């Protein structure tokens, strides 16, 4: 049996299993708290696993392993930013948000502000960030199939995107937050299991001597010791000062973006209390941290055992490094059968990864549309719960369909920058609004609206006029050249602009409600009046 067939079988098993869970979850999804927040009845450990499942995208599994395999140490910089970011969520956001919000990011912002403008801004930002991220994942899915399942025709790739999109729509529309969370839990367990297995096999090849592994990786990469140091991919010496500032800009967006990503923020609502939200973030940090350490071994292991050349020959971005490594260690241990089995397992895990992440994104954006834009802005808070959930399901379907179409259309475009852009927008617009709202008494409606739009627009505009969109062979539009902003990552400019806009908007408006802020502070720090877990 070929590895493609085996991968497909394993992946279908995952699909059947998760669909069964989804339909089982749908029987217990009755009211809005069930649909949006899984009845707030997940335990801290379950939600911690789901946080891992939601966060560890194919980009971070295959992408970071690939960057390390091809450019060495620089991939590690990415994982460290992704991990440290969780401390912002743990210390400043998770518990306070669980205590003062209900279903979406906007709930926290709208608490003491004029609800319609704030919810409109937060809804627009949520949907924008989620769609950027979603699109990057969908395009990635198409490319992955080509590599892992040997599907190379354009029709084949398009059909895969349609399949991934339809599955994600079913998870979200049928299972709501409960179904989606379980898909993420199952995926997190599979991903951790697969990554641990391959890591142990790789380390075993080197007698568990990390230094020997690094030495062989450096030798096989053809770069020597430079491979074990920063600077082969980000902020290279050839790029000069601009490249190094770009590296810092990327680091800022990574570390400050996570706590502003809507699909991450809504995970805090799925547990009964703020203490469980804290516990789930701590579990999430443990799982994500261990995973990135495994990725480090996988990346250097791939360079050492497969060789950077062989990896680059298969995929220029290195996305196949982890599967190629699995095949190589499997073969060395158990012959051809071992190689086939291990490759198939890792390929199937990669698909599970994509599915879980896109489901989380679709849920976050459709929830925000239904709860913020439809129920509170269009219907002015007069929609019934039933209507709201129906609209949420319809919008999940529409957003899924749009993502499928855009994913197929963007198949040939270089959209890898969209993930970094999503982090930049989250850090520049959402995070200032959330932090000001939780901690600054004077903050008001004008401030919230200016922070969100200011951060969102400055990040998007700077990227539009950056080298990732035009002016070079790897740009989105290689033929055109309208790039005047020298950095690929806007964070170092757009994050201060977002905070500045929020401050300026606040002080220019007279509105200020000390009473509401007192209430919010008491509620967010003590949990008084917080949303309770469902009865079932």
């Amino acid at each position, binding site marked *: 049996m070929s590895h493609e067939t085996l991968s497909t079988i394993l992946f279908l098993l995952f699909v059947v299993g998760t669909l069964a869970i989804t339909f089982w979850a749908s029987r217990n999804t009755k009211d809005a708290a069930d649909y949006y927040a899984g009845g707030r009845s997940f335990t801290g450990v379950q939600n911690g696993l789901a946080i891992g499942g939601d966060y560890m995208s194919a980009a971070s599994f295959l992408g970071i392993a690939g960057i390390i395999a091809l450019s060495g140490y620089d991939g590690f910089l990415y994982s460290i930013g992704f991990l440290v970011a969780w401390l912002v969520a743990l210390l400043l956001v998770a518990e306070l948000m669980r205590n003062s919000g209900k279903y979406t990011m906007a709930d926290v912002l709208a608490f003491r502000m004029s609800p319609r403008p704030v919810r409109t801004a937060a809804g627009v930002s949520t949907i924008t960030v989620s769609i950027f991220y979603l699109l990057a994942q969908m395009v990635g899915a198409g490319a992955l199939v080509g590599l892992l399942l040997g599907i190379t025709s354009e029709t084949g790739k398009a059909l895969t995107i349609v399949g991934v999109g339809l599955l994600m729509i079913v998870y979200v529309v049928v299972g709501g937050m409960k179904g989606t969370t379980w898909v993420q839990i199952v995926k997190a367990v599979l991903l951790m299991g697969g990554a641990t297995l391959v890591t142990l096999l790789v380390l075993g090849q080197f007698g568990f001597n990390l230094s020997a592994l690094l030495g062989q990786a450096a030798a096989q990469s053809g770069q020597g010791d430079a491979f074990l140091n920063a600077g082969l991919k980000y902020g290279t010496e050839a790029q000069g000062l601009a490249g190094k500032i770009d*590296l810092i800009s990327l680091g800022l967006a990574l570390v400050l973006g996570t706590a502003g990503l809507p699909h991450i923020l809504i995970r805090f609502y799925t547990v009964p209390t703020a203490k469980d939200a804290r516990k789930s973030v701590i579990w999430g940090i443990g799982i994500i941290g261990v995973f990135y350490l495994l990725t480090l071994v996988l990346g250097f292991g791939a360079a050492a055992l497969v060789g950077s050349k062989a990896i680059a020959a298969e995929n220029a971005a290195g996305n196949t490094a982890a599967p190629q490594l699995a095949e190589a260690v499997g073969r060395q241990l158990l012959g051809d059968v071992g190689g086939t089995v291990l490759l198939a397992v890792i390929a199937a895990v990669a698909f599970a990864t994509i599915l879980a992440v896109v489901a989380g994104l679709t849920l976050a954006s459709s929830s925000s549309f239904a709860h913020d834009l439809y129920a509170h802005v269009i219907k002015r808070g007069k929609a019934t719960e039933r209507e709201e959930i129906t609209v949420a399901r319809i919008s999940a379907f529409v957003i899924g369909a749009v993502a499928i179409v855009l994913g197929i259309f963007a198949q040939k475009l270089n959209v890898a920058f969209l993930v970094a852009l999503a982090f930049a927008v989250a850090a520049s617009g959402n995070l200032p609004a959330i932090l000001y709202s939780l901690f600054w008494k004077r903050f008001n409606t004008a401030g919230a609206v200016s922070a969100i739009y200011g951060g969102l627009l400055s990040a998007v505009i700077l990227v539009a006029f950056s080298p990732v969109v035009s002016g070079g062979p790897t740009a989105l539009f290689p033929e055109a050249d309208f790039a005047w902003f020298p950095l690929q990552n806007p964070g170092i400019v757009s994050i201060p602009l977002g905070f500045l806009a929020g401050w300026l908007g606040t002080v220019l408006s007279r509105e200020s409600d000390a009473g509401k802020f007192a209430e919010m502070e008491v509620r967010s720090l003590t949990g008084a009046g917080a949303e309770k877990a469902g009865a079932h």
Partner: protein
Amino acid sequence: MTTRQHDISVYEEVHRSEDFQELKRRFRSWAFPMTAAFLGWYLLYVVLSGFARDFMGVKLLGNINVALVIGVLQFVSTFWIAWAYSRHAERKLDPLADSLREHVEGRIG
């Protein structure tokens, strides 16, 4: 007086209470400096990765260099801060927060 106004005045009263101000102080005096510290430590790491590559490339043990050690230390500090925060919250924040919450919910119903 409507119920809503009653609720707000309960919150405002609790907000002025010494217990609440103490809870707020304990929360902020731990979380804010720690956030500044880990962000500073992370930025130092990123800046070193960009501007001090000779230093980062110094080998300490076999092929293990400064860059790898500082990178792994970022993991260690992250795990440590998460653990320390959870201990701080359980000992210093939760008991106060719980009693204030019971007080508020007892009066609002």
